[in-house]
């Protein structure tokens, strides 16, 4: 079983990836702190984990290339990593991936393979692994989690009185990495996970006490669309999180509009769901310190937003 990263591994990751990523800002608005990770290279936090994993692959294995499965953001990150480090990157994506995302990955030089479902994408990735390519898993890899965990250091530096932190969950790698760092350095910070209905693999796993495979991802938040969570990320959720709450797609879209109105940035539903959870009262407000929301990505188009608003009557 994959293990969670240690604090030292996250510290090493921070040093390792520093030349390649942006130190994203945190802004306060109306009593909430927003960590704008959507300003990260490739538009989401995923570059942190992808760089940390790729930089630890031996030169001999790098020569064979890397392969990744992704619903979007991780694929973009791996394509960017491949271009930056001179590694041949293959990204396996479900056919439902927006054309814009596929084009961006290809523009970074990645070979994009489209398959009908995300489950088939994972299966094809395993085949490539058997052929010798290094797999950069989107979440079930301590190196990836350690890379995502570097956000935790920045949060604690930017928000000294951090009391409550809200982070969205796909496969759980992001929240597992951040929680490992934040809880090691500030054990009293309360961390909440957020998912959307139809992409709630962690909530279902917590209820069942073991990873559960979702039959299909029906949420518009495709970047939260991991069909299952890893045992390691489930373990982190059980031990380090206060709760994992679920919001509807409509609430996530309302969250996009609210965050855009507040900060003049356009988050994707996988990020705005955190704001939705706070505004719906599913996450308690901080009493003395600061409540922070991680705006983890912004890979959304105005066309997508318009379509969702029509579809969900928001």
């Amino acid at each position, binding site marked *: 079983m994959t293990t969670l990263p240690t*604090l030292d591994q996250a510290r090493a990751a921070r040093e390792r990836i520093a030349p390649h990523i942006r130190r994203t800002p945190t802004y306060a608005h109306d009593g909430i702190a927003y960590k704008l990770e959507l300003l990260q290279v490739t538009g989401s936090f995923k570059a942190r984990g992808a760089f940390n994993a790729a930089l630890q692959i031996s030169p001999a294995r790098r020569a064979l290339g890397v392969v990744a499965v992704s619903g979007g953001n991780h694929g973009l990150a791996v394509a960017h990593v491949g271009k930056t480090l001179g590694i041949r990157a293959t990204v396996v994506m479900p056919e439902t991936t927006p054309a814009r995302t596929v084009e961006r990955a290809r523009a970074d030089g990645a070979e994009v393979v489209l398959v009908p479902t995300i489950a088939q994408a994972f299966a094809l990735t395993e085949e490539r692994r058997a052929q010798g390519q290094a797999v950069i898993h989107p979440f079930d890899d301590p190196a990836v989690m350690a890379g995502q965990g570097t956000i935790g250091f920045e949060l604690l530096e930017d928000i000294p009185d951090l009391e409550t932190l809200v982070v969205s969950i796909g496969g759980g790698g992001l929240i597992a990495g951040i929680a*490992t760092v934040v*809880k*090691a*350095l*500030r*054990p*009293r910070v309360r961390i909440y996970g957020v998912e959307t209905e139809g992409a709630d693999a962690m909530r279902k796993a917590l209820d069942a006490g073991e990873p559960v495979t979702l039959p299909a991802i029906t949420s518009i938040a495709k970047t939260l669309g991991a069909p299952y969570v890893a045992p390691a990320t489930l373990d982190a959720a059980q*031990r*380090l999180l206060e709760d994992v709450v679920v919001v509807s797609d409509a609430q996530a879209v309302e969250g996009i509009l609210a965050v855009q109105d507040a900060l003049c940035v356009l988050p994707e539903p996988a990020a705005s769901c955190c704001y939705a959870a706070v505004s719906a009262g599913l996450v308690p407000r901080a009493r003395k310190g600061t409540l922070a929301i991680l705006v983890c990505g912004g890979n959304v188009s105005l066309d997508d937003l318009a379509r969702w608003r029509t579809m969900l009557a928001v």
Partner: protein
Amino acid sequence: MGTYVLALVGCALVFGGLTQVAELQMAGWDPESLGPIPAALRGMSIVGTLAVPVLWASRPLRAVGAFLFGFTAAVLLTGPLFASLALEGRLPHL
């Protein structure tokens, strides 16, 4: 002798248990920032387990033994709280 043995077993169970709980709570915390706190709690548990039964078995020192029992238990119970304050920089740097 019986009193001593009973007190020894009782202290070992209580202090040992409290130390385990504290160590579990602090398991993922930054060892660098925690510094000597985990070792100090373990030391406190051992010293308490050895000293309290001796004092308890001696009639004139029983009150001191009772005080030391309570003091040790309180330190072990509150240790993680002080450790978390230390991590937040609210206590002098260790």
